[in-house]
């Protein structure tokens, strides 16, 4: 006898009923078959085409498979020691999470309750907005300014008594715009400690600009400042899911109460720690690759008459004279996977990861083909 189906309309909270699940892209083997392309170049997730650093690769290869039976360090003990040493803070100033996405959830859980809101922008990394909304909190989306940068005045104006967190993606994904130190300081001064300000520095290691702020230093002066970093982008450990947040101990202690311990596996912890050992060379090598790719692609796009938004970070946004989702499908047929930008509220734009030159050449060729059809 079959049992009655649970009454989902009453069991599921209304804010969850309104949300659709995020459906990630299918694995490469399935996509290759569906789009009929022999190979797929993933230029959609801003991964580092050079892969992990040599030390990180060594650490991954050295992992004893027998250790898979043992729980990881529940709070990434050794990695936090290393981060403390690198950035000059105490180990308790860091929380390591299963990717930066997890630490976003920790922070929202720690500070928000029913009726609260968070502030972010309309054209940025979606996870701040998603986590707030599926947790039942309002996400206030302040439009980007005309230069595609964060609009500090509008963000300040959007703050009210129920605002708990302001999220700033610096440099912004996908526009590559950033606030320099003066602008960030000015914003923090005007917030004056009333709200938590999260500066997501997922792409900070790619930034060449000398006036880019060092959030790790600023948090000494601003107790309400939290910094997010990830090992997924520059350090190319995206498959292992590891990122962290940093802040003053008192604030981090509050967030730690909402953390899921043991969520970061041993391999990720060891690889992340090792990647800090040869970080400088790896960062330089990667920046060189990104810079070459950017120069090449900008020249190609100029030749094709396509406009683009090119700032910091290992990505660029390109405006197309067609639907970006159609462009996605057409490019997929040629084995090039890009990020369509309608979902970022940039219709008819795509975002591409800047990688190795041979792949950038393939991208340029594929763009030429879709414009010709």
């Amino acid at each position, binding site marked *: 006898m079959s049992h009655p*189906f649970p009454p989902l309309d009453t069991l599921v909270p209304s804010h969850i009923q309104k949300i659709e699940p995020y459906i990630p892209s299918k694995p490469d083997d399935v996509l290759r078959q569906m789009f009929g392309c022999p190979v797929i170049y993933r230029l959609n997730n801003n991964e580092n085409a050079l892969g992990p650093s040599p030390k990180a690769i060594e650490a991954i290869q050295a992992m004893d498979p027998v250790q898979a039976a043992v729980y990881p360090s529940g709070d990434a003990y050794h990695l936090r020691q290393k981060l403390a040493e690198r950035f000059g803070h105490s180990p308790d100033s860091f929380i390591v999470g299963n990717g930066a996405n997890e630490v976003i959830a920790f922070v929202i859980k720690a500070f928000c309750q029913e009726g609260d809101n968070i502030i972010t922008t309309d054209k940025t990394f979606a996870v701040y907005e*998603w986590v707030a909304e599926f947790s039942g909190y309002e996400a206030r989306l302040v439009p980007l300014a005309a230069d595609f940068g964060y609009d500090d005045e509008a963000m300040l104006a959007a703050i009210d008594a129920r605002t708990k967190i302001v999220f700033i993606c610096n440099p912004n994904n996908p526009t590559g715009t950033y606030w320099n130190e003066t602008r960030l300081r000015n914003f923090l001064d005007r917030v004056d400690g009333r709200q938590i300000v999260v500066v997501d520095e997922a792409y900070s290691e790619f930034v060449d600009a000398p006036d880019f702020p060092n959030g790790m230093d600023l948090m000494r002066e601003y107790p309400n400042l939290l910094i997010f970093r990830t090992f997924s982008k520059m350090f190319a450990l995206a498959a292992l899911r590891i990122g962290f947040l940093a802040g003053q101990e008192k604030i981090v202690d509050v967030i730690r109460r909402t953390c899921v311990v043991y969520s970061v596996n041993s391999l990720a912890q060891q690889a992340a720690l090792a990647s800090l050992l040869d970080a400088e060379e790896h960062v330089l090598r990667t920046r060189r690759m990104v810079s070459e790719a950017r120069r090449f692609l900008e020249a190609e796009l100029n030749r094709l008459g396509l406009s683009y938004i090119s700032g910091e970070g290992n990505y660029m946004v390109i405006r197309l004279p067609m*639907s970006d*989702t159609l462009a996605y499908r*057409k490019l997929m047929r040629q084995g090039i996977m890009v990020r369509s930008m*309608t979902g970022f509220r940039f*219709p*008819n734009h795509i975002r591409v990861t800047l990688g190795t030159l041979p792949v950038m050449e393939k991208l340029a060729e594929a763009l030429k083909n879709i414009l010709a059809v």
Partner: protein
Amino acid sequence: MPHRQNIELSMPLQAAFLPIATGCVEQSVQAYGMGRAEAMHLALAVEEVYSFLAARTSTDQRLKLLCRNGGYYAEVVCRFPQHALPVGAFNITSTVSSEDEESLAEMGLLLAARTVDQLGISAENSEMKIHFVKNKNYPPVREQIADFVSQGGFREVEPETELLKQFACRVTAKYGAQAPSFFTFPGKVADMVACGEYGAVLLADGKGNVGAGMLWRRGHKLAEAFGPYVLCDQAQLAIRSIEACLQKMARTSLVCMVVQDPTPDMPPGYFELLAQDGSVLYRQLEEDNGTTSYAHPAFVDFLRKGYQQLYLPREVHPVEHQGESQSPCSAFAAQMNRPARRVTLTAIWVGKDAAALLLEHVRALKQEGFTEIQFHLDTGVAEQAMLGPALSAAGFIPQWILPWGGRGDLLVLTYREEEAL
């Protein structure tokens, strides 16, 4: 419209409780601001269904009733044990024989179907749901709205009631019969947006003159958009309307949008052509990474070719009837646009009598003066693929594909008399 206004009732399926069901519907619908006549129509529909079920089901069965305020309509949903009702009775072709007692009993169901503006039937988790919808009446546009000369300075504004009404009047004045008929009822347009089923983008100048805009109906995955409507001589307003519309749809449950009969103001470069005559434009809102389409072998080649042209990743899975048990009855829904003499058929239930029933539908619709008959076949529902031979025999031929128009893609077929076997 607030979810809080829903009225729910659960009651035994026994004749003695019938007045509670009809009374609940009558009073709820009037409390939603609709007239007594509309309330009585819905109450009559529920009475027929209730009486039919009460006479045929065991006394321990229950009926759940939901009355919902849709803003510009009222909806009543009846939920009861599956297979308690002959769904075929709701077909527009249903007839009643005075010599057949069972047939006479079904007359009430037929009446129920005819008293409402929309009817839907679905089944889930051993439960059947019948949705009855009655539209609210609105006064039409009374007088011609004056043109305005704008100095520019248009910006996106919140689609408030008065602005929406002004928009509807201006659209009616400029586009006339080219625009959907609901624009001739400004109050209805305002309610359609207020209830959340429709979205709107309006661009207005500093004096509150609406210079451009778009409207769209939110479906499960697909939005049907109307416009863009450009109401003054200002460059870029069409593009700004489209972009604002797309930005509002981003990060929602919508997967794609379609624009039927776009206005001449539609800017190039935002949409894909579905119908070759340009009458249907389409755009996805997120990356399409494939799905399975179920199709009868007769339509497999058409679908594969269409998917190739649209660059859509699809696995086309042929489905045929191979002797397995089928429901005895079929039911089709008919959505009619009488002024355009256009009707769209969809499958509610696929049963053994599908081929004959489809022929009856075509005959009945032709008799009623419909010149354009479409069938929307949902390729995401394997059972619907079984309709392939019936559709071909009745003279329906595949025209175009509407991606994600149903549970999966919709294959749109049109009736051609010369194709009928």
